[in-house]
Each structure stands twice: as C-alpha cells, then as structure tokens.
C-alpha cells in the first residue's frame, strides 16, 4: 500500500519531465511534417514546374499540357500534397520518372548501403572522438592538446574529397592496402563489406572526429571551469575522480549534443563520400536523380535524409532533458 503511494508520488514528481519529453516528440513529428511540406512545395510549386523540368528543351505547349495532365499537375496543390503524403504514410513514393521503377524498390538497397556506411563510421568516430577530446581536456595546454588542436583546426576545414583522394592515392593506388572503389552488391558478404568500405568510412571518420573532439574538449573544459570542480579538488579528490565523479555527469548532456550534431553532419558528408568512392548509396542516387530531374526519387530521398536529421536532433534534445538534474528532480 505504502509503496504504491510512493510510486504514485514518484510519477507525479516526474510528470513535468515526461511532459517535456512528449512535447519534444510532438515537436519532432511536427517538424517532420513541416519538412515534408517544404519538400513538396520545393519540388512541385516552384516556378520551374515539374513538367517543363522533365521535358527540358523538347517542351512544346502541347506536350507540356499533356505532361502536366499525366503527372496530375492540373489539380490544386493541396490535393496533390495530401495525396502524396497519404501515399508516403503507407510507404508508396510513386514511380521514378527516369527508370519508371517503383521508388521504394529503387531506394531500399541504396538506403541499406548508406545506413551501413553511416553506422560503421559512427561506431568508429564517436568513441574515438570522445576519448581524444577527453584526453585533450585533461591535458589542457599541454603539448598533446596543442598538437591536437592544430591538427583539428587543419582537418576541420578540409573537404571530404581531398581526404578521400589522398587516402586513395596512398593507401590504395600506391600501396594497394585497400580497394579504391567501394562497389558493393547486395550479395557481398559482411566481412568483405567491412574491407570494401573501409576507405570511405575512414574518410568520414577523419572529417567528423575533428569536429566532434573539438566540441567535446570545449564542453568538458567549460564544465572543468565551474566552481564545483574547484570545490572537488579542494576536497582532496584525485584528478581522475574529479573528472569521473564530478565533471563527467554534467558534461554528458553537452557531449550527447555534440554527438547528435555531428552525426547529423555525417549525413551530408555521406553524400560526398559516396561520390568519391562510387559507392551505391542513397546519396549517389539522389545526386543522379537531381541531375535527371527525377522528382519522385528526389522527394523520397530528401524525406529520408530530413527524417534522419530531425530524429537525431530530437534525440539529442530529449537526452539533454533527461540528463538535466534540475528537470529530473524538480523543486
């Protein structure tokens, strides 16, 4: 009986937190909807209408009108949006204008490849960046810190393709340690995939790690400058205990934020890296579709990228809320 009451009290205390999390989830969903609208508006209502985009130079007034009818462009925009959204909700993205295949069929294997690449890179980059960033923060001002700072300042400004081609030139062409083309097929075994995609993953990692560790370092240093850290030292705790017990729990929220932010950045990096290594991923597909004005594919790929981006940002927000003691233990 008494435990029941306590439990009830406990949930009552957590309610503001729960409400905040639900709010974020709702906001995330709303943003996704807005993004879908934006994508639709961008592709269908902008002055250069879809029909003329598809027909390009061969457009005559008659063929344009016919094309418009075929694409359903003669109906009002909001009807088409509702229809498109309804179809998307049940997983129907329509047919590609270029290959006339079902968009979902076209995208699925590509999406798998891209997710594989991104997850592989994230698994490598995140732990690496956090460890390196923490080390730089602990030895702040030391030679290691200065070296790392300088190197990251350099790599932060370097585009993915420069890193990619340098890696290819030296690790693939000159020494032939890794293949330069990441031409995986659906039948490629897992082990081979790991080797084939190693160079693109390394490229992504190098580019993202610099950002991530710089920000990790900054947020830890920010925490380390707080008076309660000085207090912990004045209590006679050794440095590692100060870092682990006092700095880390508070640095968690900013670090999570850094990771989410950089994983979102990874999404963009993937597009370029796929082009460098001719990797059959979603990014390559989207770039091709853009140059061919294949709108349904662009819409679908854009929506997937946007969803991933929004999801990451939302996760970061929610984790930050959960790790905030002021919200977890309200007055």
């Amino acid at each position, binding site marked *: 009986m008494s435990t029941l009451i306590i439990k009830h009290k406990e949930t009552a205390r957590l309610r503001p937190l729960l409400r905040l999390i639900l709010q974020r989830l709702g906001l995330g969903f709303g943003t996704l909807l807005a993004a879908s609208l934006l994508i639709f508006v961008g592709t269908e209502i902008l002055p250069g209408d879809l029909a003329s985009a598809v027909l390009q130079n061969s457009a005559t007034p008659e063929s344009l009108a016919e094309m418009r009818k075929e694409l359903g462009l003669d109906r009002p925009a909001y009807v088409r949006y509702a229809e498109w959204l309804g179809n998307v909700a049940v997983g129907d993205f329509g047919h590609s204008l270029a290959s006339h295949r079902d968009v979902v069929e076209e995208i699925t294997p590509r999406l798998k490849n891209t997710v594989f690449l991104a997850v592989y890179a994230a698994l490598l980059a995140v732990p690496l960046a956090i460890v390196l960033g923490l080390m730089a923060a602990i030895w702040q001002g030391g030679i290691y810190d200065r070296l790392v700072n300088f190197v990251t*300042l350099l790599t932060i400004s370097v585009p993915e393709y420069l890193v990619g081609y340098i890696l290819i030139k030296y690790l693939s062409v000159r020494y032939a340690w890794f293949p330069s083309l990441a031409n995986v097929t659906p039948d490629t075994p897992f082990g081979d995939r790991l080797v084939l995609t190693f160079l693109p993953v390394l490229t992504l990692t190098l580019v993202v790690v610099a950002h991530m560790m710089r920000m990790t370092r900054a947020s830890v240093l920010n925490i380390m400058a707080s008076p309660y850290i000085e207090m912990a030292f004045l209590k006679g705790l050794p440095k590692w205990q100060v870092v682990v017990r006092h700095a880390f729990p508070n640095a968690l929220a900013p670090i999570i934020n850094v990771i989410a932010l950089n994983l979102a950045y990874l999404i963009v990096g993937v597009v370029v890296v796929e082009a460098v290594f001719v990797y059959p991923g979603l990014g390559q597909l989207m770039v091709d579709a853009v140059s061919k004005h294949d709108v349904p594919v662009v819409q679908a790929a854009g929506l997937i*990228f946007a969803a991933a981006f929004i999801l990451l940002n939302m996760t970061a927000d929610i984790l930050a809320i959960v790790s905030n003691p002021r919200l977890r233990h309200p007055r």
Partner: protein
Amino acid sequence: MRLFGHRVTILAMLGMAVIIINLVAAIGAPWIAPWDQAEIVGDAWGDPDADHVYVPLMGLDNLGRDLFSRLIYGARMSIGLSFIITCLSFAIGITTGFTAAVLKGWVDTALSRLVDLLLSMPTLIFAFIILSVLGTELPVLIVTIAILDSTKVFRLSRALAMNLAALEYVEVARVRGEGLWWVIRKEILPNAMAPLIAEFGLRFSFAFLFIAALSFLGLGIQPPDADWGSMVRDYRDMINLDSTAPLYPAGAIALLTIGVNFVVDWMLAIHSRSHGDG
C-alpha cells in the same frame, strides 16, 4: 605585428597571407596565368607545345589545358561567387535578424519559426531539392545558397542584437529618448562588429565549401568555366593512375578555408579576450 591594436598570431598571419595570395590570383588571373583557362596547349595529360618557354608546374589536364592556369582562373570563379553569396546572405540575415530582435512580437515569432523550418533539414539536401526543379544556372545557385545560409546569420544577428539591447548603456540611450536608428547605429552595431566580421569569415568559408561540393557532385558551376570543385570532378579518375591532378584543386579549396579559419579564430579570440577583461 599588430593589427587593430592587437597582436597578430603566427597562424593568423599565415591565414592572412593565404587569403591575400588567393585574392591576387582571383583578381589578376588574366595577367598571372600563363595560358587562358580554355586554351588547349597540348595533348591530354601531355606536355605543352614546344613554342612555349614556360614549363607547366602541374602539367596539362584531360583536354590538354594548362592545369596551373585553370587553377588560377578557378580562384576567380570560386572566390568571387562565394563572396557574392556571402554578401547576399549577410544582407538578408542581418536585416531580418535585427528587425526580429527590435520589433519582437509576431514578426520575431514568424521569422524565427521560418528559420527553424529551413534549418530542420540539412542544407545540402534542401539545395538538392530546389536544384532538381530549377536547374543549376548561376543565379539559382547564388540565391538558393544565400537564402539557406542567411538562416545562420539571422540567428546570430538576432541573438547579438537581443543581448546588446538588454545592456544598460543601450537602455540609457532609450531612456534618453534616442530614436531606434540612432540606438542601432551608435550603441548596438559598433559592439556587434567583431563577432559579425568573424561570422562573415565563417559564412564565406561555408559558402565556398558548399559551392565546391555542389560542383564536385556535378550540380554546381557548369563547364566551360573553371572552378575548383568541378576541376576535382573532371580529374578524379586520374587518381587511379597515381596522378596528383585532382589533389591540386582540392588542396586549393582546403588551403583557402584553413586560411580563413585561422583568421576567424584569431578574431574570435581577441573579441572574447577584450570582453573578458571588461
């Protein structure tokens, strides 16, 4: 060396040198470059014709044009375009940002929500969507990137103006009865200059990298104009023959961005220092 009353670090000096060299190349391309960017001076990847005294620094390219000359002309396109984009995005971002901060109320809410919406998607993806319909003509590129980029300028200038407006010396001016324009011009803008200049550098390097990435993907500047991003694209297959050709334009892109970042870093550091001392 000192600049604006502050000691210039070695990195900042390096950065400035890189920027100046690039600017000189961009402006003086026709006089500096040994050949025209489109002039075919020999066989593909070969040597130039014998009647030229000049030894090509980087060899000829896939169509027999001089790589070094194209690199110099490329600076023109890449830097000039990014500069125009950045100016445009600043004009849009600062106007809307300051307006939102000053007017507050529904104007602020509406503009802020719009910017949130534009930032809810990766910029590159959003650009793809627009380019897929409008094509890749230069004006489209410029306006698209400028608008997308102005969202970040909007956020910064809005925050800056709001922070500064809350300061007591701005309050003093308002209580004195000064007009809005005077308050912005005399009290807010001079104190927002340093972070805004630094942001200009950052936005420039972002626009620069962005347009280079688009060109590299074949969705940016179209031939025959030489620009660094599309040069990387044109020469990329040569990497498998152990050629260095694509690394030159890619390296040029990296070098300029690094240079700009060094200067921006220095400026941010002196700004935070002069404010930390109070």
